[in-house]
């Protein structure tokens, strides 16, 4: 097995085992989104209008939940030292850790979203659009989050700091993700434009995130 494949398998194994926190994000997502109809009352039109925004917000917060442990856990037990001494480029290792994190926390959100969509009175087309935007947009959240996780790597309680650092950077993703999802469910605006920009944001974050996070890690290890 190559170094990167080994890293992917290891991170996914750790995430799905006891204490790994893979399902924490999706549980948080389900709880938050399921509470909204109770808070807002049985106004179906209102729920339908704000449903995509609620789900996107919940997904955003849920995907940040386990992020602070991404590098901090490896830093605390000394694994990060050995990772830095490995022959695999750090940028690729960071990217593969991001992929593993998305597969274990981001992808379950995408799968769970249609169920919660029912709570929020979304019809079939709106749900399909929502799932599509989440599928395309959540990798961007993870890869932008890599930067914050790398910056906070040496802090023991870096969770909130990661969220504060990362949330402003995720605003464009949120705007265009919700815009695309809303375009199908309520708006007269076209779906294609915001969706294309969302795709572009994701592609950019896939490139920028690993490089920035790797640079931050190298700096932090000094």
């Amino acid at each position, binding site marked *: 097995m190559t170094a990167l494949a080994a890293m992917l398998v290891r991170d996914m194994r750790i995430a799905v085992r*006891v204490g790994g926190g893979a399902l924490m994000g999706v549980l948080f997502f389900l709880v938050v989104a399921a509470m909204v109809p109770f808070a807002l009352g049985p106004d179906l039109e209102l729920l339908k209008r704000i449903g995509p925004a609620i789900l996107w917000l919940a997904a955003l917060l849920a995907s940040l939940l386990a992020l602070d442990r991404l590098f901090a856990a490896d830093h605390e037990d000394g694994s990060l030292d*050995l990772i830095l*001494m490995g*022959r695999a480029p750090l940028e690729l290792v960071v990217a593969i850790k991001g992929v593993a994190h998305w597969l274990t926390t981001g992808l379950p959100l995408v799968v769970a979203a249609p169920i919660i969509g029912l709570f929020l009175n979304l019809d079939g087309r709106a749900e399909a659009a929502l799932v599509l935007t989440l599928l395309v947009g959540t990798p961007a959240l993870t890869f932008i989050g890599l930067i914050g996780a790398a910056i906070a790597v040496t802090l023991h309680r870096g969770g909130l700091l990661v969220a504060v650092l990362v949330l402003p950077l995720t605003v464009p993703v949120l705007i265009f993700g919700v815009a695309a999802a809303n375009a199908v469910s309520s708006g007269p605006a076209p779906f294609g434009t915001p969706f294309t920009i969302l795709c572009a944001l994701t592609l950019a974050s896939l490139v920028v995130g690993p490089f920035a996070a790797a640079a931050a890690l190298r700096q932090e290890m000094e």
Partner: protein
Amino acid sequence: MRLTASNLACRRGGREVFAGVSFSAASGELLAIRGRNGAGKSSLLRTVVGLVRVAGGQLALEAGDPELTIGEQAHYLGHQDALKPSLSVRENLQFWADFLGTGAAAIGEPLAKVGLDTLADLPAAYLSAGQRRRLSIARLLVVTRPIWLLDEPLSALDAAAQQSLTDFMRTHLAAGGVILAATHGGLGLPAAREVWLGQAPSPLAGEGWGGGSGAGATTSTPAPRLATPSGRSQREGGEES
């Protein structure tokens, strides 16, 4: 292969940890790094592998692989074990074999050598401190790298494990490897030379290592000790220093 440091300096957190450290270690040589607590033994090892930036002086590796950094040709056995508690012994070792190594290395034999083959399927969370240490040592055996940097390698190990680590080190040196070991006690092997960091060795430091190892534990030949005028750093022995 020859690892050479000249006038190496290290700063951490704005504080000078050590400066003017020079040493040289050729293939088959064991270098003992000594000094009191906080003198910078671990920092020196971390500087050599590139985990801490070199603040001054030079590090060079002759006859190594020019494509790779020193860190990429070295094993670092630090205070932390780099083990994931939720993964089994086998999974932990297999991961490092795959990540640090080049190909499919067999992990069965190294596990048996460190006496953990019967625990291969146990999650690492249930290992004792000594067993965790043994599992880290197995990493050195699974992936072949010419330079070993060991930070207090004998800590937490029982007499038998100390003896086997000494044997692994002897085998590594015989195969042309280089070992730098930070230690307060002995290593069970004669060091080619010693590098002293910080103040001159007090009568308490560096004397006999109190045994523990059942067999073959010999105190290293004490090298002549030179105090530099600054008293900040000293280097020892060695024909080329």
